[in-house]
């Protein structure tokens, strides 16, 4: 009897342990998105709703881990001592979602597409590449000049590998037509990512189905992904997206308004996640001597720009706009999640006396009028404006608002027809060159439209782009951040996380700092 009960106990224990260890598999995750994808192709993905989905359908040669590019589709990779040749040895177990094996020819085809300026606006990311060739499973990439960011770029969505055979077979006269036809077909075969696109209705729904040939294994030793698929519904209205989650019709809702974060955190059925992001909110300041209407621009004086930054209580803005779910910017040129970000916090900490002194020194007349251009309909922008108007009043600055739509704001940024306007940015690549090129290197886009042009800064940026010694490159970036902070061509506001709410049945879904929605290790309890 005793023996029997011991055996029963062991069996019971083993049963409960195996249940505890059993990996949840199967099921379709229902996901509410704020905006729909248009075309998910590594080289044609221009908008975030496209870019952030690429990695679910396609794989990159390398992948980033703790800021370092490591092997992904490759079993090894090596850079020659002069930094001009890359040798990539591909894994031999990679298959596209239709079961056809991935070869060196697919890699050559994909990288040639990704660097073709006539096809994609992302070509500049790998403009250092001179030739790409393959022999068996060894791919050789030669560079025109040493490029410190090249490994990160091979871990970037635009260089993800597509099937040459799928493109050769697709109908259409041009690459873009072929890409659109492949996307519309909803058949597996063009990518080797954890899922393939199996359904798409423009602006309404999208479906991913698990790639049965995916090569990475899960915690249980079986191939990923754990889910059978993901069903997306496009729900642009914030309140409706939240209701859809609360009613249980979807399992995850993204882009939760920060004003609702506390309420959803308190909901016992839900888990509210604030994923660290590279998203920064800032306001470019027009630094040109004169405005487009010919009048003198007081903001050309660096002291006024610094004064406005000192007079801005960023912690108060974080509390007002983000309800505490964020932080003031700590680097003047990038988010704290971006590699090589310097922690300069507090970046222009709130100091009204210093601000007043700078304004007096600059000889700014009381009643000086400045225009703050905001996005029409944006509650966040409206709050920022109202707060700034009050915060800057003690300096004698009369802040007036101008509300425009996004495209108009973009046009004003390009033409310099603004004083200060709201703007946001998320990194697309795991390297600081992109955001720093945008914000500070004048030839890219007039230093985010501010007109700020600093020869020393531009020289450092160009040097850093060819600097292969990581320590020296980091030093270049440190100097650029110091120069930029001092010149204050921006009003620095805050960094925001990605606010995603989900059912407690969902585990393992993450949104990476670059915005990528990652479903390969997501599970849902049945």
């Amino acid at each position: 009897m005793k023996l029997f009960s011991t055996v029963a106990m062991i069996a019971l224990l083993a049963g409960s342990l195996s249940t505890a260890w059993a990996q949840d598999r199967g099921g379709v995750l229902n996901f509410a998105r704020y905006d729909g994808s248009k075309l998910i192709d590594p080289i044609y993905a221009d908008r975030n709703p496209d870019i952030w989905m690429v990695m679910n359908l396609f794989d990159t040669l390398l992948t980033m881990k703790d800021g370092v590019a490591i092997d992904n589709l490759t079993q090894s990779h090596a850079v020659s001592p002069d930094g001009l040749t890359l040798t990539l040895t591909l894994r031999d177990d990679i298959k596209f979602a239709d079961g056809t094996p991935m070869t060196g020819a697919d890699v050559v085809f994909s990288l040639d597409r990704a660097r073709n300026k006539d096809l994609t606006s992302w070509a500049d990311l790998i403009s250092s590449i001179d030739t790409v060739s393959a022999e068996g499973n060894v791919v050789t990439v030669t560079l025109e000049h040493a490029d410190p960011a090249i490994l990160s770029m091979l871990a970037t969505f635009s260089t993800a590998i597509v099937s040459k055979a799928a493109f050769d077979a697709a109908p259409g006269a041009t690459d873009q037509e072929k890409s659109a036809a492949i996307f519309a077909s909803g058949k597996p075969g063009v990518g080797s990512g954890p899922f393939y696109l199996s359904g798409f209705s423009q602006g309404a729904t999208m479906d991913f189905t698990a790639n049965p040939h995916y090569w990475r294994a899960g915690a249980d030793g079986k191939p990923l992904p754990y889910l059978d698929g993901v069903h997306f519904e496009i729900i642009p209205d914030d309140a409706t997206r939240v209701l859809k989650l609360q009613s249980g019709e979807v399992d995850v809702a993204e882009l939760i308004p920060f004003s609702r974060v506390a309420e959803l955190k308190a909901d016992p059925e839900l888990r509210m996640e604030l994923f660290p992001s590279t998203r920064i909110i800032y306001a470019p300041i027009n630094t040109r001597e004169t405005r487009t209407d010919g009048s003198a621009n007081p903001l050309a004086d660096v002291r006024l720009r610094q004064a406005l930054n000192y007079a801005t209580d960023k912690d108060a803005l974080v509390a007002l706009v983000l309800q505490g779910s964020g932080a003031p910017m700590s680097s003047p040129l990038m988010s704290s999640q971006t590699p090589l970000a310097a922690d300069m916090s507090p970046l222009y900490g709130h100091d009204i006396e210093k601000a007043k002194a700078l304004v007096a020194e600059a000889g700014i007349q009381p009643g000086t009028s400045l225009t703050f251009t905001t996005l029409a309909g944006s509650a966040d922008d409206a709050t920022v404006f109202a707060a700034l108007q009050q915060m800057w009043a003690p300096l004698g600055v009369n802040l007036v608002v101008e509300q425009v739509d996004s495209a108009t704001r973009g046009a004003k940024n390009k033409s310099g027809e603004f004083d200060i306007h709201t703007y946001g940015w998320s990194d697309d690549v795991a390297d600081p060159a992109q955001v720093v090129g945008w914000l500070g290197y004048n030839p890219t886009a007039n230093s985010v439209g501010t007109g700020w042009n600093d020869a020393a800064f531009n020289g450092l940026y160009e040097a850093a782009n060819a600097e292969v010694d990581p320590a020296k490159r980091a030093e270049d970036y440190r100097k650029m951040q110091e120069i930029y902070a001092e010149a204050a061509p921006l009003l620095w506001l805050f960094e925001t996380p990605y606010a995603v709410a989900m059912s407690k049945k969902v585990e393992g879904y993450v949104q990476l700092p670059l915005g990528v929605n990652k479903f390969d290790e997501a599970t849902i309890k049945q």
Partner: protein
Amino acid sequence: MARSILTRLLLMIPTFALVMIIIFVLVRLLPGDPALALAGDRASDAELATIREKLGLNDSLLTQFVLFIKATLSGDMGRSILMRAPVSAVIANKLPITIFLAVYSVGLSLLIAGPLAFVAALNRGRWPDTLIRTVFQIGLSMPVFYIGLVLLTFLAAKLRLFPVGGTGIGLFGQLYAMFLPAMAIAFYTSAIILRNLRSAIIEVLDADYVAFAKVKGLPPRVILGRHVLRNALISTVTLVGLSIGNLMSGTLVTETVFAVPGLGRLMLEAIFARDYPLIQGLTLTFAVLVSGVFLMTDLFQSWLDPRMRQ
């Protein structure tokens, strides 16, 4: 009658031409261009220049206009810049859902407003009249998006009687899934129809020919159906026609709140993205739809009121 329809159809041609010219010019007067909207914030000046060249935005306005007219006349509305697909295909994909929502909500409005207008008119000044008018006054004074959110919160999220947003599959699936958006619109539209129809019925009830019909001893069913309803409907038909016309292009808020992917939402996306071909295609579609609805309204009115046929 056939000649009158033909004349009306021919008159639509200059209307469409004018609409196309106006929208072609207006959309290009907006600050910003498709290249900027397409490439987003991160694009460098060089990238923007490349995209503009590819999209033909560097051609003169006249060249662009001639190309556009030529293409439109040959039935080609161009390719949507944002959707990367032919404009006709993008619109054809969304059109049924918008027409369905418009017809569904007007149908519901008539079902609600018709009987209640009779009840109110026949009980003029008494409590049923006051009650009906008060309730529908609320419909008139509340914004549609608010009614929508209230319906969603209580009937969908709390009581789970309906899905929160979406369009459903199959006729019954669609009728079920889109009941709340149709109801949100119908609450407002029926309030307008009810006010108009009630006044018209009261006016007709006081007319001599109705009094004569009563004197003749006709049964009330015949008086109300043949004499009162038919005459009271004349002005209401115009109103319903206008409402349908409005709904074809004006359901943007409802479509957004209820996640219905229709033409209203598409137009907003197209405008934000400065997607010229799509904006032009949608405007032409709206012009055709609205003109079609107005033509049908006129025909129905002629049927109701023989005086209009002359």
